[in-house]
């Protein structure tokens, strides 16, 4: 049987004193946190803390990398591998041409369906599709969530290299 507080006077006093002390300690801790600088990033203000941006590998909105020498101006060879592996079936490609000239005439990604799992980027044999750290994509119309070929091409225009995380490992003695 557990003792209830109030069983005897001495215990009661001891518990009260310890309780009061624990409350004071708590007040002290919240007090120092009151003075300590906060960790808030104040998001829309870009000047406040520049490193708030997502990390380079962040899986955000899609882009198709461009290659001016190919038909359609894209690296994409419309091999449909990304369309096939996508577990959400959110990629739809209409290919055109044969052999080396094969390229997509329509490339739709429904970002309202995608789960940003990166499988399409991994499976791409020519590293044509990628994800950008772009996240300000909230919209009032669900139709606007579907990215078509032009949007994807426009987005990928500024990305010179496929964004893959470099396999620079840290090891026990060297890197760490």
């Amino acid at each position, binding site marked *: 049987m557990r003792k209830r507080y109030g069983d005897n006077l001495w215990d009661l006093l001891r518990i009260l004193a310890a309780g009061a002390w624990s409350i004071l300690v708590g007040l002290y801790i*919240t007090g120092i946190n009151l003075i300590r600088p906060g960790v808030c990033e104040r998001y829309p203000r870009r000047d406040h803390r520049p490193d708030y941006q997502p990390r380079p590998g962040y899986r955000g909105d899609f882009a198709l990398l461009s290659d001016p020498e190919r038909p359609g101006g894209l690296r994409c060879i419309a091999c449909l591998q990304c369309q096939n592996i996508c577990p959400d079936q959110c990629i739809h490609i209409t290919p055109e041409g044969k052999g080396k000239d094969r390229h997509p005439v329509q490339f739709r990604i429904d970002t309202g369906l995608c789960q940003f*799992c990166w499988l399409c980027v991994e499976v791409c044999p020519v590293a044509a599709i990628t994800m950008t750290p772009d996240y300000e994509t909230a919209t009032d119309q669900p139709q606007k969530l579907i990215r078509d070929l032009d949007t994807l091409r426009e987005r990928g225009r500024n990305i010179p290299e496929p964004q893959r995380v470099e396999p620079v490992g840290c090891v026990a003695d060297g890197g760490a």
Partner: protein
Amino acid sequence: MTWDPTCVTEELVVNMGPQHPSTHGVLRLILRLDGERVLEVRPDIGFLHSSLEKIAERLDYRQYLPYTDRYDYLCAMANELAYVRAVESLLGVEPTPRCQWIRVMMAEMNRIASHLVYYGALGMDTGATTVFLYCFRERERILQLFEDASGQRLLYHYFRIGGLRNDLPPGFCEGLRSFLDEFPRRVAEYDALLTRNRIFRSRTEGVGYLSPEAALSYGVTGPTLRGSGVSYDLRRAAPYYVYPELEFDVPTRPEGDVMARHLVRQEEMLQSVHLLHQCLDRLPPGEINVKVPRKLKPDPGEIYVRIESPRGELGVYLISDGSEKPYRLHWRAPSFHNLQAYPEMCQGAYVADLVAILGSLDIILGDVDR
């Protein structure tokens, strides 16, 4: 004043949830109350049943991997670990040593992150809002490391069958080390602010008692079981990967109340810090990926793989019929089994205790309902 015989007391049937600030998601509890006393609790689950096990039968082994994150979303790495281990065992693939170390590291980091959410949520449930925000403040640092490594903050899809998405990015180990150096101090802070607080102690001590026998018979695992005095941790009982080489304690408390489970989780966070220090010290160089065939077609057979997730024994039961897709996949959900013991813990509790006990179980509805 005389006693009026026509005046009778009535039992109150209250519906708690599925939308309630402290049911930790979409759990519905049907309560029968006598004033503030709880006479009966009946959990009603299934509000988050998203047919994850059925989906596994429609997708191939590789495509299902991102879905495992969504299953118990607080410890995505642990789910991935369980699933990847199951598929690899079916395929007969052994990951490289570096890959194993990194997987263990990630699982332990995720354990800390998950326990921090638990810690904050229990504080929130007992009315101490501030602890919740402190816990999330520290958790953000882990999430940032995860984001560096995997490109996502919550649902990582970092493990692959036969390896990892990529090696650890530069600066990861330094970031982790600085976090690990600071974190025990922060835990001490929470300890003083919440755990040692007299009010919190009186709210949690002796509340929600679960005897070891009952716990075992309900199939309760994880910190909830260890809070009842049964020292059972799969990292020790059925070690996998590099756990045999690491040294750590399995914190156990005999009391079996909310406070015991709370202290077990608090101690586990510190043990995870200890484990992560060892991982960082001993992380071997080398390859991270093993070559696996492009089309995964394991031989027909079945396998049950279990790991210690932050919530308990997380098992994957996988049957292959030799095709590209699993024939059947079943998750042994720790939260589901832990929740079964909940009505028993609530015997004679007050309404306020109900919330604290549920918080101490640390259930995730994605895990319960699948």
